């Protein structure tokens, strides 16, 4: 499945594709310095700041100045330990102006265990050869102590040490080459295996050009986003693309949004938003948890596309969202899908821009037993509905392969593989993992799916992975955490995902075999398990199920069988009415 090569590149990137992001910054400053780059809604929701392109990059240049004074050179890795704030936005581009390589680290939340958080930061710094960290004055002492033993690091830079009157023009001579690494995105992995995805300037610009074409980006588009920036969807679609294309970005904080989901809708109305990327759970949250009084006079008619991305897409999530917001002038064809991953910079496919979003009804048994996706008859009540992810974006190829990596015909389920001009250069400081992920130039995604009429349908994944609200959680990590609790039999734990229809995302469930079954012990273990899981992952376990000896099912080789235990658990919970 090969997409046509780019014939029409929209708006700002229509001048010969710039070599680097730096060249594009320069172009924007020369052609539209006073255009509003960003409307930033402060995390308390109380103020909305309008920032022009010129102001934005002057602030970025202040960071570049401080980085240069601290000894940062082109190619150095700079990690940002900053909240969702203007600081993190400016720091990211400050590093880029200097030809350094920024990477955004998720900020400490009130739920995470600080010791564990700083340990993981320490591991990243040591493994990746981080040269400098930018953070807040309040974290300076702690970070200085934690990272004191790491060799080769420059002093930590704090946000209040920044100068004023930054001048981006001072940095045109620092411009990197098209092949230089522009920044790192973090791809998920189980604990200790977080991978830094290296993306070159050329790859990022190819992605922006290709994806902008796929979504028919126009000069009057406005992007609205609350997405975090340490994830590809937020970083590329909700930050870099609008900024580099010179269209306004309305940015809210994820913490603010999750407490008050309706702020997104009002921002869309106020700024005439046209594009918005959301993970599947957000459709459920917006459809079921926003009160009608919060929606008075809402008008969503400006929206061209909501783009569902970063976790499995459900037809019923689209349906309830459409039903809820049709009275608020949501147009019928606005719900679309993109399949994306950090290893391809971002988007691989996009649906629903040339015609209606497709939903494929397939027969259940051939899907479950023969890995085939055969169209179901209209009266087939057991049919499954799979949501199309659309066609590959320009300059990206997608195929579905079997276990020997040979391409499969349409409607055969196998592993999704891709090849494009916006792929990663490799994983930072992890050459051996880079080699494993690629096969004859194809990146093997680990996702399962099929192709039908040229569109990609994703049906599952090869690896055991739980996706909670767009965040990837490895069951092995949960099992290890619970295994360490006093009273849990070592190694006798199993974790998996359970789809939550109401929330539109997966819940974490963990089963643990305990040695003493009295109520007091059970209460303590329940409490510790939930506490430790949230402290380590920032995500809650919905189900913590404690069992006696002989409950857990093992394979013939003595390993705990994840799927068999999941089935047994689901039956028990259903019988008790707790699912």
């Amino acid at each position: 499945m090969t997409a046509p090569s780019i014939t029409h590149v929209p708006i700002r990137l229509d001048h010969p594709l710039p070599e680097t992001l730096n060249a594009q910054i320069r172009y924007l400053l020369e052609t539209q310095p006073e255009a509003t780059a960003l409307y930033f809604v402060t995390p308390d929701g109380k103020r909305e700041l309008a920032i022009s392109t010129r102001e934005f990059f002057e602030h970025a240049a202040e960071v570049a100045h401080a980085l240069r004074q601290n000894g940062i050179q082109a190619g150095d890795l700079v990690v940002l330990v900053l909240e969702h704030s203007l600081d993190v936005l400016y720091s990211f581009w400050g590093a880029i102006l200097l030809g350094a390589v920024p990477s955004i680290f998720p900020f400490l939340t009130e739920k995470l265990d600080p010791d564990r958080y700083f340990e993981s930061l320490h591991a990243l710094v040591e493994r990746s050869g981080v040269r400098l960290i930018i953070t807040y004055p309040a974290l300076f002492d702690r970070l200085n102590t934690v990272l004191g033993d790491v060799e080769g690091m420059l002093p930590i830079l704090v946000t209040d040490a920044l100068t004023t009157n930054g001048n981006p023009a001072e940095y045109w001579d620092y411009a990197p080459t098209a092949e230089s690494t522009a920044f790192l995105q973090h791809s998920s992995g189980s604990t200790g295996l977080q991978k830094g995805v290296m993306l070159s300037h050329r790859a990022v610009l190819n992605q922006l050009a290709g994806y902008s074409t796929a979504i028919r980006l126009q000069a009057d588009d406005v992007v609205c986003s609350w997405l975090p920036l340490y994830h590809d969807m937020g970083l590329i679609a909700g930050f870099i693309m609008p900024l580099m294309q010179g269209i306004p970005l309305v940015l809210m904080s994820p913490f603010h949004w999750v407490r008050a989901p309706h702020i997104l809708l009002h921002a869309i109305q106020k700024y005439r938003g046209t594009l918005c990327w959301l993970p599947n759970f957000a459709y459920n949250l917006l459809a079921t948890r926003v009160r009608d009084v919060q929606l008075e006079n809402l008008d969503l008619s400006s929206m061209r596309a909501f783009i569902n991305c970063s976790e499995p897409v459900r037809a019923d999530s689209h349906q309830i969202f459409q039903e809820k917001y049709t009275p608020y002038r949501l147009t019928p064809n606005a719900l679309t899908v993109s399949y994306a991953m950090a290893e391809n910079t971002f988007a691989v496919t996009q649906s629903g821009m040339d015609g209606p979003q497709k939903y494929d009804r397939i027969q259940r048994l051939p899907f479950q037993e023969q890995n085939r996706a055969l169209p179901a008859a209209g009266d087939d009540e057991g049919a499954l509905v799979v949501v199309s992810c659309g066609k590959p974006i320009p300059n990206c190829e997608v195929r579905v392969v079997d276990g020997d990596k040979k391409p499969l015909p349409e409607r055969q389920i196998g592993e999704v593989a891709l090849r494009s001009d916006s792929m990663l250069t490799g994983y930072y400081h992890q050459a051996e993992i880079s080699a494993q992920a690629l096969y004859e130039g194809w990146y093997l995604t680990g996702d399962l799916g099929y192709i039908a009429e040229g569109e990609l349908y994703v049906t599952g994944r090869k690896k055991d992975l739980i996706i909670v609200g767009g965040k990837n959680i490895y069951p092995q990590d949960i099992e290890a955490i619970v295994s360490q609790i006093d009273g849990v039999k070592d190694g006798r734990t199993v974790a998996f995902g359970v789809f939550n229809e109401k929330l539109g995302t997966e819940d974490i469930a963990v089963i643990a075999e305990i040695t003493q079954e009295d109520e007091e012990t059970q209460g303590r273990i329940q409490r510790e398990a939930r506490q430790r899981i949230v402290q380590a992952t920032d995500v809650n376990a919905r189900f913590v199920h404690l069992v006696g000896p002989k409950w857990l099912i093992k394979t013939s080789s003595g390993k705990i069988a994840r799927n068999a235990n999941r089935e047994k658990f689901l039956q028990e919970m259903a019988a008790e009415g707790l699912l």
Partner: protein
Amino acid sequence: MDIRQELKTFITKEIMRNPKYPLKDGEPLISGGLIDSFSLVEVQLYIEKQFGVWIDDMEMTVETCNTVDDIAKLIEARQ
């Protein structure tokens, strides 16, 4: 049934899916990993339906609503 008991029944059954969980009045709900951000909205809607009190979005934080006690006091003050 008093407010605290009703809240505890709702949280253990509907949110934690474990009615036997020995939830205490002063136990941290958010920072303790018992209730996540998505479920806070659910608690909010339950409180409105059950007690006729609306707790504003921005009040549902660790500082103000981290325990059954915290939430019960907010409800009592507004009923």
